[in-house]
């Protein structure tokens, strides 16, 4: 094993947790995860169990069964009766609400976790973190006197200054514009480059995943339903709810018509309509009921019947409605089933699109994903 591997192995989070929710007996969180140093995104619709999972890892909630180890140190093991209390776990946790202490200044908030550290060391760490997160000028302010982004920076600094073994972030950047968000993420990455610890970042925002993620763990209804690179996990969703959360506007019921193994494709009939499309081959047989997910932005729209295309699916339909939201135009096209298509205002103008006009939709075979 080379040094790199050893570092990665000794610093990782390994957990396996089962937890019932008190208020909802039908929900069971049952996950195993393994996160190396760096940012791992926990992605899933709300109610999937992401926050429950973080609460269990931090020790604020006690799992019904399982095992949690960070840096090869066991923090919880139901079989061995080990349950390290949250204040001894050295796991930093930034809540969505941030939970800054309203009666303390920014500086006092950040120093909160450094009580047992010698003066000199504390001063050094404080200066380091105040600078790293750009909050030096806010030292004497109270949380109520600073902006949302500054509060988020303060909360991150307060958690990281304790030099935790693991960082848990529960949607800490909600409500920020993309630019500010990117700046904070940059600071977090820079910090993480020198302090190699695993960071679990909870979000249900697809854009944040693309901005942050090397790795994604997708959770739904208390289970891990996918893990890997964001492209693999979220662009080819295996579950309907995940597909919705990941921004697949079109989720259509379909029936398998036939399989064409030699071409690596199969044909589906959409809904009760006569409309047929070609999608990548999957484990299925003729007559199976399946669902197919297609992004609204992956569909081409033509005002005349297109010819000479590589795309295999050209569907004729009628424009049912067209609405504009900001710089995005959302078209609904009736082809026996209704497709949602995203267009730019410029495209709408140059094609002179309007409701009731006949249009053609063009779908690439590999833009169609089967979900189960």
């Amino acid at each position, binding site marked *: 094993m080379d040094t790199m591997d050893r570092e990665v192995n000794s610093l990782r989070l390994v957990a396996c947790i089962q937890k019932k929710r008190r208020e909802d007996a039908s929900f069971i969180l049952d996950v195993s995860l393994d996160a190396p140093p760096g940012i791992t995104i926990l992605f899933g619709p709300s109610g999937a169990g992401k926050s429950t999972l973080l609460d269990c890892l*931090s*020790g*604020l909630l006690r799992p019904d069964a399982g095992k949690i180890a960070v840096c090869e140190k066991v923090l919880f093991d139901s079989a061995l009766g080990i349950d390290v*209390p*949250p*204040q*001894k*776990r*050295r*796991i*930093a*946790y930034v*809540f969505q*609400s941030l*939970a*800054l*202490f*309203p*009666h303390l*200044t920014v500086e006092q908030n950040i120093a*909160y*976790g450094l*009580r*047992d550290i010698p003066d000199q060391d504390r001063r050094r760490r404080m200066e380091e973190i105040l600078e790293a997160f750009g909050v030096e000028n806010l030292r*004497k302010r*109270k949380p109520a006197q600073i902006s949302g982004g500054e509060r988020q920076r303060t909360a991150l600094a*307060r*958690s990281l200054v*304790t030099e935790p073994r693991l960082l848990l972030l529960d949607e800490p950047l909600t409500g920020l514009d993309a630019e500010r968000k990117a700046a904070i993420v940059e600071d977090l990455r820079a910090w993480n480059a020198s302090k190699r610890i695993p960071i679990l970042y909870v979000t249900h925002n697809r854009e944040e995943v693309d901005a942050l993620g090397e790795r994604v763990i997708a959770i739904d209804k208390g289970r891990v339903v996918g893990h890997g690179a964001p492209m693999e996990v979220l662009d080819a969703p295996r579950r309907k709810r995940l597909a919705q959360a990941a921004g697949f506007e079109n989720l259509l019921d379909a029936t398998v018509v036939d399989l064409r193994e030699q071409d690596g494709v199969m044909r589906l009939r959409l809904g009760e309509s006569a409309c047929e499309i070609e999608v990548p081959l999957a484990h299925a047989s003729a007559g199976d009921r399946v669902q197919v997910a297609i992004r609204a932005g992956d569909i081409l729209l033509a005002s005349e019947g297109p010819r000479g295309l590589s795309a295999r699916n050209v569907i004729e339909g009628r424009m049912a409605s067209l609405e504009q939201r900001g710089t995005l135009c959302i078209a609904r096209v009736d082809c026996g089933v209704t497709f949602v298509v995203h267009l730019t205002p410029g495209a709408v103008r140059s094609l002179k699109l309007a409701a009731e006009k006949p249009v053609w939709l063009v779908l690439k075979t590999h833009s169609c994903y089967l979900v189960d």
Partner: protein
Amino acid sequence: MNSLALSFELAACVAGLLLLIGTPVAYWLAYSHWRGKFLLESIVALPLVLPPTVVGFYALLAMGPRGPLGKMWMALFGHGLAFTFGGLVVASVVYSFPFGVQPLIASFEAVDRKLLEASAVLGSGKWQTFLRVILPLSLPGVVTAVVLSFAHTLGEFGVVLMVGGDLAGATRTASIDIYDRVETLEYGEANRLALLLLAIAFGVLCLVYAVNRRVWTPAWTRWTAK
């Protein structure tokens, strides 16, 4: 010693003791998940609805030479508890208990739970969290509890009469003194004392409401910031 000074001494002792006893009780009532905690809540609130004579009567029985409290006191200090200043303090603590505890419960419960969780993950145990987060954020509640238990003790009559008798210098508080003066037709002296108690009570209530309305918030913030 005049009766007013005695009243103040009694009120100060009771307010101080109630803060010491009331804080852990309020903490437990605010944060316990025990299903039977309504029982303790009811007991704490009991003096609010009982006539002072009932509280006084049972306090007297408990403190008497054959009562459990009386016997214990005798063994410890070599004299009885009933009709002494000590006896007044014990009975008044019981009688003012809801005033010393309920404001604390209310202010502890008002502290955002997420702050307590944040404190825990930042390495503070329950005691540290109490001192560094709960207590500073509950200061208006603490002030209210101390001031109300002080004022309520200052104004009590029935319990003091039952437990203390009416011994000048030992158990004759201002409220009983007023009663005595009226009995002996010393209206002028009664009026002087009564007016004083009225003014004190009004001042105290103004303080409580001002603290809870955060009339002095800016000063308050500056103070806690340093």
